[in-house]
């Protein structure tokens, strides 16, 4: 199991050091600094073995978190834990920065004591932790409160406490998708997938039992409606759920039921590869005119309902390292050559569906002796569209709270779809 956990600043000075196991000595702190943080060459693996001691590290801005062990631990668990640790710290004091860590070091030690016992991760749900790790000094709890805390921390619903009350029961569902594409210069889709998340913000009283439904092909086919609602169903390749979702129920009936944590949580993640709506098509044309000139022409076409508007469109056209000057002409938006980034960045604020726009550029090159050819990195794109490129639709989210007297109808529900570009690249 995890033998120790260290937090360093970018210089390699240790900010937090908590050792759980006897086999980890103080020299482990230095070993990581010397061999990883100060390493001459960038370390090429997130797992490093130094003198039979294994170090797992993640970096958040310029803070290093390292877990140390001498045993054959579950590596996936260690990384999951480190991410969770970051989440917990963020939930308590915001951004993970050197200053915040120093300002909260007592809190961090207290947290580390609670969520990692002898190197075994314990309940690390912020909802539960916040009930008893408060940093507000003396807080005498009544006996009931105490046992409520302990039963929540160890209980089946460790992520939600009892007795939550809201005057207005409200919930927000965000379907956030990132659409990834790799296209050949000829317009052939090399790979495309959508990774989506359903994020739920709930402000519900009591212990509400929720049921979530979407246009999952398997469910729709089972119900045999045959698209009676005009609702296209989608094939989900795979999905994972927040720990509040009853997995065995999903496995058996494919229904998503849960008691949500209070506030925000990522209910579900999913991935689709079939019938993806690719919001934009990029058509590149690169021509080398002699040894000192390149002509680039890029057309983008939007491919969705004309009534919808895409936003924050940005096309990034890489230029060779020996570029000396660039002339750009574009019909829409603004385009600029950014020498420091070796790219022409073309920005368009808004663009409706079924439109197209074009940019052409002349790139002057310095003659070089460099034998190595320019690698021609792909043209990448960023955008945001107000629909889900996977085609996912929320069909319902039902709320039942048997003990309190509010019904599904009393809950105000909001649903929003946002599709963003993930890695959206076209080779040129």
């Amino acid at each position, binding site marked *: 199991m995890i033998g120790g956990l260290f937090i360093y600043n970018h210089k390699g000075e240790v900010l937090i050091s908590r050792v759980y196991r006897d086999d980890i000595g103080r020299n482990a702190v230095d070993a990581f600094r010397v061999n990883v943080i100060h390493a001459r060459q960038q370390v090429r693996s997130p797992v490093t073995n130094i003198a039979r001691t294994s170090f797992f590290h993640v970096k958040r801005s310029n803070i290093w978190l390292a877990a140390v062990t001498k045993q054959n631990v579950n590596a996936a668990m260690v990384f999951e834990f480190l991410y969770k640790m970051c989440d917990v710290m963020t939930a308590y004091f915001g951004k993970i920065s050197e200053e915040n860590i120093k300002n909260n070091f007592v809190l961090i*030690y207290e947290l580390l004591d609670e969520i990692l016992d002898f190197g075994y991760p*314990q309940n690390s749900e912020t909802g539960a932790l916040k009930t008893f790790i408060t940093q507000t000094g003396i807080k005498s709890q009544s006996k009931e409160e105490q046992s409520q805390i302990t039963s929540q921390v160890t209980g089946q619903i460790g992520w939600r406490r009892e007795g939550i009350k809201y005057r207005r029961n409200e919930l927000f569902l965000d379907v956030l998708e990132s659409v990834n594409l790799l296209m050949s210069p000829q317009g052939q889709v090399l790979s495309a997938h959508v990774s989506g998340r359903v994020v739920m913000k709930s402000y519900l009283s009591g212990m509400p039992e929720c049921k979530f439904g979407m246009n999952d092909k398997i469910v729709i086919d089972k119900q045999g409606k045959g698209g009676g609602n005009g609702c296209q169903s989608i094939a989900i390749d795979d999905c994972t759920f927040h720990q509040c979702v009853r997995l065995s129920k999903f496995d058996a009936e494919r229904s998503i039921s849960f008691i949500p944590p209070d506030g925000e949580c990522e209910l579900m993640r999913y991935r689709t590869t079939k019938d993806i709506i690719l919001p934009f098509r990029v058509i590149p044309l690169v021509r080398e005119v002699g040894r000192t000139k390149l002509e680039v022409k890029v057309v983008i076409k939007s491919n969705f309902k004309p009534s919808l508007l895409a936003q924050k469109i940005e096309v990034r056209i890489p230029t060779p390292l020996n570029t000396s000057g660039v002339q750009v002409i574009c019909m829409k938006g603004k385009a600029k050559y950014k020498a420091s980034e070796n790219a022409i960045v073309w920005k368009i604020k808004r663009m409706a569906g079924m439109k197209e726009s074009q940019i052409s550029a002349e790139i002057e090159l310095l003659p070089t002796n460099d034998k190595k050819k320019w690698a021609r990195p792909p043209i990448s794109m960023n955008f945001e569209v107000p629909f889900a490129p996977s085609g996912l639709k929320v069909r319902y989210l039902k709320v039942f709270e048997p003990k309190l007297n509010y019904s599904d109808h009393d809950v105000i529900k909001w649903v929003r779809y946002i599709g963003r570009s993930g890695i959206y690249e076209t080779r040129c």
Partner: protein
Amino acid sequence: MEWANQLCENRQFGSKMTDSKYFTTTKKGEIFELKAELNSDKKEKKKEAVKKVIASMTVGKDVSALFPDVVNCMQTDNLELKKLVYLYLMNYAKSQPDMAIMAVNTFVKDCEDANPLIRALAVRTMGCIRVDKITEYLCEPLRKCLKDEDPYVRKTAAVCVAKLHDINAQLVEDQGFLDTLKDLISDSNPMVVANAVAALSEIAESHPNSNLLDLNPQSINKLLTALNECTEWGQIFILDCLANYTPRDDRESQSICERVTPRLSHANSAVVLSAVKVLMKFMEMLPKDLDYYSTLLKKLAPPLVTLLSAEPELQYVALRNINLIVQKRPEILKHEMKVFFVKYNDPIYVKLEKLDIMIRLASQANIAQVLAELKEYATEVDVDFVRKAVRAIGRCAIKVEQSAERCVSTLLDLIQTKVNYVVQEAIVVIKDIFRKYPNKYESVIATLCENLDSLDEPEARAAMIWIVGEYAERIDNADELLESFLEGFHDESTQVQLQLLTAIVKLFLKKPTETQELVQQVLSLATQDSDNPDLRDRGYIYWRLLSTDPVAAKEVVLAEKPLISEETDLIEPTLLEELICHIGTLASVYHKPPSAFVEGSRGVMHKRLPARTGSGESTESPDVGTAAGGSAPEAAPSIIPSQGDLLGDLLNLDMAPPTTSGPPPPTTGMQMGGMDLLGGGLDSLMGDESEPPHVPPRMDTPRSPSPQPPSPVYTHTDYTYTDYSHTDSPPDHSPTEHSPPAELGGDIGGSPAMGAGFGAAPAVMPASLNAPVGGGLGDLFDLGGVGMPMGAYIPPKIVWLPAMKAKGLEISGTFARRAGVIQMELILTNKAMSVMTDFAIQFNRNSFGLAPAGPLQVLTPLGPNQTIEVSLPLSTVGPVMKMDPLNNLQVAVKNNIDVFYFSCQYPISMLFVEDGKMERQVFLATWKDIPNDNESQFQIKDCHLNSDAASSKLQGSNIFTIAKRTVEGQDMLYMSIKLSNGIWVLAELRVQAGNSNYTISLKCRAPEVSQCVFQCYEAVLKN
């Protein structure tokens, strides 16, 4: 530390009420000042002071002097302050054990506190104070806490048992905490269950043979129930624990799989990977024709793919595991090639891993896509990645024949880029393509030769030289090219030197007239001016070969080469199986067994996949065994590195197998492997029998071969081998007087059959193994019939329990293995005056888990002076504990009078299972793989059997002879044994005619069994 002091200067910010101000204590009199503050009456001030102390501690300042003062602050109702003091205590208690005792009272008191959070905190902290004296005081509070009414306290106490066990294992056992911990597995609270499982698993790991976890269908059911209810971390503990269980039959295995599959949808990747581990392991037991089997295979792919959208560090862990899974079960991900395409901004460690998997998944169906991708990658920036991509193109060519042409043209395009490392890498892989498809792509040689000058890496140079030598007849200026390399011969690496030597000899054999000078030059460089023994030996061999029998030389050196295998870099099957059992853990990330990086006894036990054909344990369900009989071993050989590689390694060849990267391994290490196997063979070549086989032979002066021993064996780079006939007159090593090349020219055109010294056509190693009689290693694979197996050896019965000691009951007995069943054969004699009834028998835990498979069948009462013979079938699934000696068995026999105890030693040969015959290739690989430290040698004296008789005698006891070879009258038998618990023992038995002393070398991953195994040899052979 620096930043602490920096903050000190910015004290004005200290007014901002944040904790960072605690890092800003003034340097002078700091300790003194803190002391005063710690003893202050004001609570707030105390707390502030403790915070300062902790801050100093974090940055590495020694604040141990404040120990008593800090401990004084412990008695407080302020939880935050208490936690801080505890943190301090955990850090310094070890350095101040006497003072730590001061804290004990508070701990004990806190363990009784009304607040469960405080009780838990106390018991949690106490376990972290690693002071022996404290542990004694810890026991009572811990016992209470393990039975506390509050689950939070119980779950903390469960972990505390593991802590205590780490400090004092004996204490934990004596106090019975292990039993309490086992009880907690049935706790009503899922988190308590999870922590108890974690603690027990850890404790069990340090006692590999104990049966602590005692998993049975009932407890498994409890765990599966808790799995649905506990936290994500708890689910990981439980799944990891489940993976250690071996279901009784396929039905149980399926029902567990069904209950584990929902976990594949968990958001936590570690839960998913641990579930995958359980499924991969239990799937082994499912019959392949079962519908559920294919359903399960389909279910595994999506979650594995989803892991690739996790954070990069987790992606890395996932990819390392997928690499294993793809090797074990390629069908799972065969359609998912695209998800492994590299993204431009993947971290380099993710890119490299993805590339590896892409090659493994490449097939005819997707090769076009893969090649297009690889070509893109070859133009990227990162040198390692580009190299790997180029190599991958070559591997695709070898793997998918239809794509070979396209691959070659892609490689040629890449060579045209003139990027140095790309060119070199391309040449290395093209060499392999030539090997795989001889006489197909030689047209590209001209292009390759253009780049000769730019090659500066040994591997690329060696590859190029090999190509020139191999195709010397088609390259007009081959002699010039090779000559140009010869100039700096001594500056080249060994790899290049050896290759150059071979290439020039090949050239000479192909174009004898023009290259005599060249060959003499290289031979003299190799034999006289080099102090590298490998190079010198090879030089001499060529020399003698050329001078004695040029026709033979031609046949040997220019022999047809065996094809190279398609798959490379595969993990050896036994290791792969073990790693599959460690999915998700560090072992799977390193691709090494835990014993390679974990110190001490933890995790050293080798895990294995359950066998589909149950050897002993699945007797209840014989249908399972027959359903998929033997499919597991069948799969094994296909994953082995190609035979050529294997022998290549064994015999210390320098030409790396296809696409194995890196410099050649250190010579001496490699040599050991080869020498061990070759044993006397090589010794005799060197004419120095007294030299121990482990020491690579060194020749200080050109020595003449010893006149006596005939038929030595040798191999060289091109995987050819020969036994060249012994020359009577030692060759003269002065090149001036040496005139073979001249004679050679004439002879070479002659019929190959004229090679007088050859008993048979030169065999190519290892593709055809029909070596001449007495040809050494070749014989190893060419074992004739081994004679009829005889029955297993059964030692005579001896008295185990004399009547004196057992109130008149005398027990004598022995052990036997009959038809695969181990039996304990007992003779019970009643030497007392009264009738004995109610017999029962029990074994103590023992090294191999022997246990009675049924009750002791003594049906009728045993009257005075009566004797009864009983035979008791034994199973090997009982609890395991290492005994000393290993084969010791402690037995308790009960009758109506009393319980009697005795111990006896069983011959370990009864544990040798019937399927202990290893594949030859596996044998070679395993022999090589087991470190030499694990080898033990014994002498068996006064044994008068010949080797065949010995072999058949041993076979009767399930000691299987895999191969036999004869070197100068000494027979070497290579044998394998498999113990009922899956341990393999490999043996080499040397029998010399006319010498009644046998020598036996045993190699085993668990060397402690060697002594017992030797005893069996002795017993079997002498009876």
